């Protein structure tokens, strides 16, 4: 196991789990008046950051190790979120405004008489969680199968991933899709019969999110450090040469692409109960591009960096939008430019030299591999 985690990996795992546990203890075991008490909204806020970290990890897996810059990964995240949202909607039952035991409020409002077929089964938790992984996975598999087979790569791939999430955005805005249209799914009451508003539920969700993130990190390390991962990096750096050696780059790409979409879907599923709403805005192309910048800030192709970047940028966003809301876009835009111009290896790049001296199993940093992608 040690070889798959590595030193930075162990530090990250310990930090994530330790911090989550600390927040939980400070929230539950201290009096609300105490100076070390952590309010529940902070717990949920960090839970949200960790789900964003899962999205960043998913982006880093495909961008950092397969050279696929996805500008539509938030679509998989949102699909996972909708699966969880549908389960939570069914959990409301007859407690909705219209007190209809099977139909969610918005369907009653739209005069729907019965549940659409694709809502069947979402009242069962395991099924809903399965769908949170299967739906993004299948979409990614189908999309990836055709795309990689016809060797669409580089910028073209980025643009069609953006078109994909844009098309989904438009689709989910439609009321007759049966996903609540513009308003999305909200007003959740409880999960597995436990009220969502309880402090204990929030802490529990944070801990579960932290554990899932750690598992995802280990899975990613396992993939990229295996023999498979070495081929993947070869594909990233010189796809044509790898193909001539006798590998099938599209199969390698398709596999990580699908795994990455599933990871993003899990992130989305954990995001929804902690934030309390899922709406089509999550499909906005801007969200996907923001996820890419988290990875770039932390360091592309470093995995731990993606988690670090996601958390740091989002903490910055929370602070900025609270204090100087009009400056946030300047800061975010500046970050995009600064990181691409001056910190191509992100924050992890700053530690790279020290790590190398200690003789760790090195993850190859991704740089200048894009040069040949210009002509598509």
């Amino acid at each position, binding site marked *: 196991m040690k070889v798959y985690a590595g030193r930075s990996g162990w530090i990250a795992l310990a930090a994530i789990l330790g911090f989550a546990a600390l927040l939980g203890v400070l929230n539950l075991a201290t009096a609300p008046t105490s100076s070390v008490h952590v309010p529940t909204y902070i717990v949920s806020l960090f839970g949200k950051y960790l789900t964003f970290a899962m999205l960043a990890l998913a982006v880093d897996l495909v961008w950092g190790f397969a050279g696929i810059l996805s500008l539509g990964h938030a679509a998989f995240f949102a699909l996972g979120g909708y699966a969880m949202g549908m389960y939570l909607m069914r959990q409301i039952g007859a407690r909705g405004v219209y007190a209809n035991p099977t139909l969610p409020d918005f369907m009653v409002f739209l005069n729907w008489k019965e549940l659409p077929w694709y809502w069947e089964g979402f009242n069962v938790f395991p099924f809903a969680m399965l769908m949170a992984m299967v739906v993004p996975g299948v979409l990614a598999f189908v999309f990836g199968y055709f795309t990689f087979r016809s060797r669409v790569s*580089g910028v073209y791939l980025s643009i069609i991933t953006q*078109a994909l999430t844009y098309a989904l955005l438009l*689709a989910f805005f439609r009321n007759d899709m049966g996903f609540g249209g513009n308003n999305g799914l909200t007003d959740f009451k409880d999960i597995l019969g436990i009220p969502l508003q309880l402090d204990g539920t929030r802490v529990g969700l944070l801990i579960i999110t932290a554990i899932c993130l750690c598992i995802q990190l280990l899975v990613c390390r396992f993939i990229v450090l295996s023999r498979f991962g070495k081929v993947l990096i070869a594909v990233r750096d010189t796809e044509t040469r790898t193909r001539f050696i006798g590998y099938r780059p599209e199969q390698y790409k398709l596999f990580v692409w699908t795994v990455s979409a599933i990871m993003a879907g899990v992130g989305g599923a954990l995001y929804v109960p902690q934030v309390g709403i899922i709406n089509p805005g999550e499909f906005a192309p801007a969200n996907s591009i923001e996820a890419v910048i988290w990875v770039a800030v932390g360091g592309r192709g470093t995995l731990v960096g993606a988690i670090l970047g996601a958390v740091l940028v989002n903490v910055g966003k929370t602070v900025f939008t609270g204090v100087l809301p009009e400056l946030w876009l300047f800061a975010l835009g500046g970050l995009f430019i600064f990181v691409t111009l001056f910190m191509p290896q992100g924050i992890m790049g700053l530690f790279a030299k020290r790590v190398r001296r200690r003789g760790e199993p090195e993850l190859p940093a991704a740089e200048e591999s894009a040069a040949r*992608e210009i002509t598509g």
Partner: protein
Amino acid sequence: MKFISAFLLCCFLLAARGARAQSADEAFAALGGTSFDDIRRGVEMLSLSGSPQAINVVTALQAGNLFVRADHALFIKNADGSFSAAATGAPAPDVSADSVRAVRVNNAVRRAVDAALGSLRLFSPDPSVRMEGAQAVFISRDPAALPALDRAIAKESDSSVKTAMEQARAAAMLNSDETDETKLIAAVAAVRSRGDMEARSLLGSLSGKSPAVSAAAAAAVAAIDRSQQIWGLLQSVIYGLSLGSVLLLAATGLAITFGVMGVINMAHGEMVMIGAYVTFMTQQTIHAIAPGLQPISLLLSIPLAFVITGLVGVAVERGLIRFLYGRPLETLLATWGLSLILQQAVRSIFGPTNREVDSPAWMSGATQLGGVTLTYNRLYIIVFSLIVLFALMAALRYTPLGLRMRAVTQNRRMAAAMGIRTPWIDALTFGLGSGVAGMAGVALSQIDNVSPNLGQGYIIDSFMVVVFGGVGNLWGTAVSALTLGIVNKFLEPIAGAVLGKIVVLVLLILFIQRKPRGLFPLKGRAVEA
């Protein structure tokens, strides 16, 4: 004999004149009556009397300016408050406002007034008024107007007005109790030749006619439906061209920066947005210092927008993009960041709300082409987008700068060896693409909200257009923009606006799988560069 016949003719003419004057007198007497029935009859008689004052009197009645005195004499109130006699039109200075009361109208009178105006207008010296009169009769289908129409057709010289009158006559006849089949079938044919929805509803509502007439009417309705379908199709094509021209405008600049230079400029939409704001600023400035130039402020903003966004483009290339050549994905991220900064900067300066850009008078209005309505602003945008495209092609093809641009994009090192300063050509090329985007912003300010988010709505579409058309190919960009516009408009009635757009996006994604280099891929050496 000759003398006698001349005498008889004179007598006849005099009698006719007398009869006419007499019926006008009767009409005025009836109008001065107290019951609505009298007034209605008066209007009808007046319209048939041929009195020169008739149109003024009926118009005055319609506007509520016809007054009656206790002795039943009628007066028209003029715009300045004075009165004139209704029968002669002579001024009546001795009439005061408190000695007269307005002639009352009810719905029956109003209908009579409308019909009377229709037939009275048929004799106006102004052909456009006669045309209006004919249309009014066509819509009212009042059989009472038949005699007037017959007379009007006999002396009509303008052929288009005459046709309209004949159609109106046919409509009135179909609505009368005429039973002569050949006349009725001829009337159906005349109405059918009009071919619009009004004619269709008239023919569709015929009842109680003989089988032959009903059959002719049914055939006419079917024919009108067919031609309406064709016009509808044409309308979709034209709406599609209009949407396509907007896409083309937005994408032309991108075809230079992305297509020719290979720079993924995600801030392209913001260049369009800046162009729109330049239009707004130009308009405000002209409003403040030279209001007389207002009608051409839009024209002035075209070169201004080109220069200003072009300079912004050069600055962006020198300050940001030149460090990122050969790293397209990093360029994408950095320019995305730039777009966020530009949006927020505009939002801080101009506020988040929409800004109003006026349309000059010569751009408003619409024209009717057969069954298709064309608004002028859409028409101008189609024309403008083509002008921009051809101007750009000419610039690339025939100017020294264009030659250098093509040389640098085809073989940078060879161009440099020939003494071309490639860094400057890069900056100017990027400036050119941005300037074209700015001009697109001027046009889009006429049809879209000028807000900081203006550009965002076009960026994905623009990339789609360029990729679909084939990178580096301006003709391909034009064909792809117009095709996408038309496909979109044809899908809209079938699938709805949003779903239509989704279908187009999915089709595009599938298309790129089949032909990753677009509709018209470049061939030869340019590809290897």
